[in-house]
């Protein structure tokens, strides 16, 4: 019982120690995207646009009613991804596979368009692919 109490306290303390996901100030994030309107997306990676100043990737995401919608997500500049060890080939290798991403929606109301932040491919590794701030 005591051990359970200690473990419980340890879990709570560890939670407080969790590092916040780093955020990276970017030129236009706040103007273009709504940091108060962010959510998690799980879907299938369908396509990438690998061009500067930003990359884009596309996912088929099921809504609450099971309807599949195509979403596009903005990434960092490609050089930033490359210097962080995130290569184009990694995205290509994951086309057709399940992806999880945290994204913030566009402020101008554009449908199915978001800035990406952290992302997980099927290898389960958390990667920072965009300038999401929430």
């Amino acid at each position, binding site marked *: 019982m005591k*051990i359970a109490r200690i473990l419980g*306290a340890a879990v709570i303390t560890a939670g407080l120690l969790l590092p916040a996901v780093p955020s990276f100030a970017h030129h236009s994030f706040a103007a273009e995207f709504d940091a108060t309107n962010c959510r998690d997306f799980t879907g299938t990676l369908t396509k990438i646009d690998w*061009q500067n100043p930003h990359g884009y990737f596309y996912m088929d995401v099921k809504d609450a009613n099971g309807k599949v919608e195509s979403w596009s997500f903005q990434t960092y500049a*490609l050089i930033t*991804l490359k210097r962080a060890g995130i290569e184009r080939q990694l995205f290509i290798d994951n086309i057709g596979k399940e992806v999880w991403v945290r994204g913030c929606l566009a402020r101008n109301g554009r449908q199915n368009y978001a800035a990406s932040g952290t992302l997980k491919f099927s290898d389960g590794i958390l990667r920072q692919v965009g300038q999401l701030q929430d």
Partner: protein
Amino acid sequence: MKVHLRYGFACLAVLTLLYVLSLPAGAQDTIKVMPPGGPAPRMADGHPDFSGLWLPNSAGQGVSGRFGVDPLARRQFDPKVTPEEPPSFQPWALAKIKAMTPTELELSKSSVNCMPRGVPAIWLQNPYSTQLVSTPGQLVQLFEVLNNFRVIPTDGRPHTRYPEPLFQGEGVGRWEGDTLVVDGISFDERTYIMPNGWFHSDALHVVERYTRPSMNYLIVEITVEDPKVLTKPWKSAPRRWTLTNDHINEFYCTNNHELDELQKLRTQELESKGK
């Protein structure tokens, strides 16, 4: 007492394990401030050689989008040690900047509109690498961002008589001991000094001071004089760039969805003002 100690160790072990497991992959590998390295190399004429690929941080490698980076390694300077005063604007200039809407401000940024940053912004608001090639009498600057370049004579020559306005202006260099001083005039008025609406006039005069105190560090200090816009000259902190063994990339700014999205947002702003 023994029991408490045992629980204490168990608690600590669980805490440590949970903390490590909670870290994103790679976060355990902290990226630290790069050591200074040995003395700076010199050219045949005895002046410091600035050649190398430089990144605007203290890490000597990319830091954006990476976990586990020492905050000091992200910085170009420590504001507690070398504070940087804000620019002191003429009242009319400050009013002009304050009148910009958030979207107008975004659309003015080189990172959004894909116009060249120009000097001095390319040394003040540039997160990408810069390749320097020093030769006696000349410094070549190859900027990764937007594939911009500059060739600066360093033989102490004066400015030309009728310089034309350019994004990079007309820069002429001279040596003051081991410091290369580049004097710049004649700048295209479409550029901004900082991505906060700080515009400039045709009277802009920029002085860049380059030093390489050691193998791995390049220090760039900028002075901005613009009596039509500022009430007094502005001086940057000595900003540190670190040597990297990475390579320079191509960066053409194309397919910029951002510009379209922001222009739609600007239309919405104007419509809401009209109501």
